[in-house]
């Protein structure tokens, strides 16, 4: 199944350097329409105002965490099917389970490489 790489991707992280890294890695795998948000609240506002084919979010943010953002997305009738990848340094099993129970599409643990990012995006978008 071919993936539409012209889709809008929203990346969410409170660390601007990390946003820059993910944006550049996405660019290298030909996702050029990338928007950024620095916390869950800003991300939710952008998602509700726009049309996004994929969300890639960090977990540890304030005031709204990545997990809370995921729960909000899954509770929103228009957004609930949006693919959502969590990228986080949290690698405890209970975190992964909590994210899965909240409806995460995939989970990438930091530090990650470009190949992992590409593979998870293809897997998630291939299931849409």
């Amino acid at each position, binding site marked *: 199944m071919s993936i539409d790489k012209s889709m809008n991707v929203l990346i969410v992280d409170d660390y601007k350097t990390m946003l820059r*890294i993910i944006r550049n890695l996405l660019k290298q795998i030909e996702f050029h329409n990338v928007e950024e948000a620095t916390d869950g609240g800003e991300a939710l506002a952008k998602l509700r105002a726009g049309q996004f084919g994929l969300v890639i979010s960090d977990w540890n943010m304030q005031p709204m965490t990545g997990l809370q953002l995921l729960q909000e997305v899954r509770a929103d009738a228009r957004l609930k099917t949006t693919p959502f990848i969590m990228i986080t*340094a*949290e690698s*405890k099993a209970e975190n992964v389970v909590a994210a899965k129970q909240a409806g995460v599409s995939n989970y990438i643990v930091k530090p990650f490489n470009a190949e992992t990012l590409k593979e998870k995006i293809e897997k998630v978008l291939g299931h849409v």
Partner: protein
Amino acid sequence: MYEQSQTMLEARLAAHRQAQPTAAKIEGVVRSVISTMRGDLSAHETTLLAEVEELGRTIAAAKAEIAALQVDDITDSHIPSATDELDAIVEHTASATNAILEVCETLDGLATELMGAAAETLNTATTRIYEACSFQDITGQRINKVVFTLKAIDRKVAHIVSTFSCGEDVLQPSASMLDVSLSDESGLLNGPQLPMSAMGQSDIDKLLASFE
């Protein structure tokens, strides 16, 4: 007489239980116990009295040790200085990382003008630099955990000193202590785990697959 003293002591002990225990209050209880033990003492009461006296000496020694700690230096200077140094490390590494990323983005731009193997080689190189630069996020999170721990220690030390200061000047929390509130962090997680205790991506993939 003995019963009356015992009743008074129990009443004082009950009052102390209601209040915040301080070294002064503990000393008061010890003195009350000793005052009920005047007169002829049995062997059992003598042993008890010796233990109470030992407790009093231990409290006095603890107070002396805490006074010798020079906690003002720790809370007003050492810990704030250490946290400032760590904050500066995060700031400098972030700045250096952004400089590296800027150069990398320039190289990416050049790669679009190249063809074939040269473009691919340059792209592979810049990808590896982007991947490596994510160290800054991880080290930043680790350092923030250390800063948070130092501030928690700062708070605990001040609390112990104020508990034992008994009428002397009670230490006020330093500015760095007031910055920290556990409730503010309650929604957050623990940050990166140490490599020996962390799950790898393949473990996480297996765990996720177990739900399917």
